[in-house]
């Protein structure tokens, strides 16, 4: 990996970086759409490419089950299998083991779970996870970590954090022995739950291992914790992580979350939200999400956003025809998926431009004003951005407590 910081915001901690991997350059900050099963839902690799996306995420747990490593090997890796010629990131598979299987037990050796095929006890070790990710062949691979829910409290959180550090060592050893360090890049995952002391300890340990690590992820968040705790952990981690490594915040996808994280120094994020919400008929816009199932859109002949560069809007696809087809025809899901991925890329692209031009604080102000408008700014965003020198309430405005996520609710 070649990693270079091109510009820094003079007010916030936001930055623009150039990350060169084996399959090309990805400019940061960026949002990574999730192609769990080696496909962005409903789209082809060429369509995703045309939207200006240069980094996708595949899920190791899923690809290991299907199509399986033998097929991926025969195909020459996941890039070739799915026809994706740009950069790819795989997770370690650990998160799904915990979230999808009730019977997983964690031992020092690895994660013990019952095989979805045979029901037999199967062990996923840090070494095995790296081996699987080598076969998949993604440009960025993740260490196996000991994941606990962000709502967990007590000694289990500390145990998981410490084990994650030990497993990182095993992952580094396995990765370096493979001779794949020039084409694949290992990221560490900072754990420690919602406890700043544990997070600090983890940061210390993992940054010591910087030579074996190409980048850092902030894990164990986005699990239903208080937003005011969430951003504080992000800020703490981003501040302490080395300048010359990319920082990846896992599972973040709402526009306001993305921009706050960028302002706090995060470079990358991923989430299934924009593609999943598309299938339920929700289009993301700079004025907030639009639920196309609502009957108020039935005779609206305007596109979702006349200024959006996505194929759906550029073609003038009306809200009315989307309303007519949404949840009935897969092509409506495709149209909204194309739009939502473009929206996410646009939010991050505009951030890059603003940082380059020294206008990132102004971009934050105008984005939040348009997005939350009269509804009011989420309090946690106001709090978080104040700590990096941006006051959303500079010109007044309402504040709302709670998560503040904006939504167009169903009628009645």
């Amino acid at each position, binding site marked *: 990996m070649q990693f270079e910081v091109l510009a820094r915001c003079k007010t916030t901690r936001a930055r623009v970086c150039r990350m060169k991997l084996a399959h090309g350059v990805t400019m940061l900050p960026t949002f990574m759409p999730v192609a769990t099963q080696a496909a962005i839902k409903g789209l082809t690799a060429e369509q995703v490419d045309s939207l*200006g996306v240069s980094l996708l995420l595949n899920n190791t747990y899923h690809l290991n089950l299907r199509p399986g490593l033998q097929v991926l090997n025969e195909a020459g890796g996941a890039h070739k299998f799915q026809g994706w010629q740009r950069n790819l990131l795989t997770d370690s598979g650990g998160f799904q083991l915990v979230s999808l299987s009730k019977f997983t037990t964690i031992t020092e050796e690895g994660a013990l779970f019952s095989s979805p095929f045979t029901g037999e006890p199967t062990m996923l070790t840090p070494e095995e996870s790296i081996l699987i990710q080598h076969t998949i062949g993604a440009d960025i691979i993740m260490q196996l970590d000991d994941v606990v829910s962000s709502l967990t409290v007590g000694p289990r959180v500390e145990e998981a954090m410490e084990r994650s550090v030990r497993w990182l060592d095993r992952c580094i050893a396995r990765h370096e022995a493979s001779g794949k360090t020039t084409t694949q890049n290992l990221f560490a995952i900072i754990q420690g739950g919602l406890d700043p002391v544990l997070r600090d300890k983890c940061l210390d340990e993992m940054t010591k291992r910087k030579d074996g690590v190409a980048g850092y992820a902030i894990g164990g968040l986005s699990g239903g914790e208080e937003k005011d705790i969430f951003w504080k952990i992000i800020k703490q981690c981003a501040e302490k992580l080395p300048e010359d490594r990319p920082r990846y915040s896992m599972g973040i996808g709402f526009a306001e979350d993305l921009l706050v994280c960028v302002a706090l120094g995060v470079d990358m994020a991923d989430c299934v939200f924009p593609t999943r919400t598309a299938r339920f008929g929700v289009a993301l816009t700079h004025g907030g999400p639009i639920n196309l199932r609502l009957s108020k859109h039935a005779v609206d*002949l305007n596109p979702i956003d006349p200024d959006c560069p996505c194929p759906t809007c550029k073609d003038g696809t009306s809200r009315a025809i989307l309303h007519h087809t949404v949840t009935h025809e897969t092509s409506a*899901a495709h149209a909204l998926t194309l739009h939502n991925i473009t929206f996410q890329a646009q939010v991050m692209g505009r951030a890059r431009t603003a940082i380059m*031009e020294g206008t990132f604080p102004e971009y934050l102000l105008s984005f939040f004003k348009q997005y939350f408008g009269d509804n009011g700014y989420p309090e946690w965003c106001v709090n978080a951005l104040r700590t990096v020198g941006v006051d959303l309430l500079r010109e007044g405005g309402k504040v709302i407590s709670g998560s503040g996520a904006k939504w167009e609710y169903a009628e009645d």
Partner: protein
Amino acid sequence: MAMTTTGTVNEMIMSSVFTLTTPLSRRFGPRLGQLLSKRSGTPDQVIETPSFVTSTSRGVVPHLSRDHHRATKAIRWANVPFETFLEHNPPVPTLLTGANPMHNFLGFVPGQHLLSLCIRDPADGREMPPNGNKHTSAYCLRGVRKVSPENWRTYVEACQPDMVVAMYDQPFTDPPYSQKRLTKSIERTSAWLADLLLSLQSSQSSRHRPLVLVQMAGGTNIAARKAFSTNLTDILYGKEADAIAPLTCLDEGVFGYTFDLVPLRQSLDPTTPDSPTPTADPTLPDPVPSDVSTQSCVQTTQLIPFIQASLSSLPTTKIRVTHTARSPHEILRLIQDVGIDIFDAHWAQKAADVGVALDFQFPVPKHGATTRRNGKRDLGHNLYHSQYTHDLCWMASSFSKERPCTCLACSPFSPATRIEHSIVDHDSQDPIASNTQKPSFSRAYIHHLLHTHEMSAHSLLTMHNLTILDEFFSGIRSVLSTAEGKSFFVEVDRFVDEYDETLEVFDEARLLWREVDLARGKGRLAREKSKQTQSTLGTAIQG
């Protein structure tokens, strides 16, 4: 010695023509033609026949985003059943203004996509409340709607399609139909056709006037069918003549004849499933997705006499359209024994819904899909089957082992342009050249997508199947144009001998489709599931 359909309807309709390019020695038999479609402000469009029309569901080609339906060259003509738009009153497409309203609303390109409108989905044979003297019953999600001749001409005038099927009286109550019912059907269909022709003529608007197709009435009664055709060509006198002047008979205003095969099959074999009622109880397993056309035991040879009866007294020069032919075998027989010019792609699109990648060609090629026990070759691959887990070949091997088919699944291209989201993005455009051919998506990849319930599988399969169907028709035209008619008959026999007409591979795919649905489709809404049981196109959306 080209023969041209000459109507005297008006200058705008005159400008679009259907021309037979083979000398026509007989009324029935294979023929080559050319449909030249003109629309003001857009380039002329030429469709060589025999060819096909792509079926749509709720106004869209199932599974294809707009960029995909445009890049799929096989889609030249799309037929849109209007009934789903009756959910809203007035129907939303009628609220559009400007040129090419319906094309724009649905994302079709005038000059590239010929757009035809009909009221009902020709593949839907479900039982319906009876029609009346002044209305036909149509089906939409909010229930049954009545459409009057006046409604229909208002909708057509507002939508400005290239072609329209006049409103007709097709009973969808329990067959068989009495002679009295058939007489009524003939009278209504004639009257409603006259009504549409009159309104198109008297229309003061400068908007585009569509070509009119007429559905051939008379059911499975030879005499009734002949009587209907005679009605069309009878010279009218008195008030009736004044009403359609300057036309002297209805047929003069008609561009072509259409035949829906579903009601014919149902009438000939009452056990033909229409649209099985979906299981109301969500705890019961889903019924295996069925298809009206493929599950009927009515043979093509049983249908032919009725189609011929309709055409026996009509001009031979007009375009002949059928809907829901169930296999390429049926298509070939209808070309050979009748001289049908246009078929729909319903069966090939349905194959894409259930995971079948078509792999066949006309004339019969050396390579192709697997051979089954009965010694026949399959028309395609059931990509659900585990034999494709490791198969890294492209979908169709019929053309040759060296060349993939030209669809976007087998011959994908890197995008011509990419959106740049920031001032530093030019750096991330490398290293991929734009608009360059990429390797084919493999059978193994689509097998994987099918088993993981990924919608992309159906997008790729739809583009592929339409392209294979297009190659099939191109093969038919080339055999018809290069040699004596005789060699076409020889090639049809070879095709029928070679390929499995029982479509076993489709049945096997449907069973596996269901297995995967049961295993993975837990989150689906029951309403969406019901879609797969109907003969309408498209699969449910996974949540």
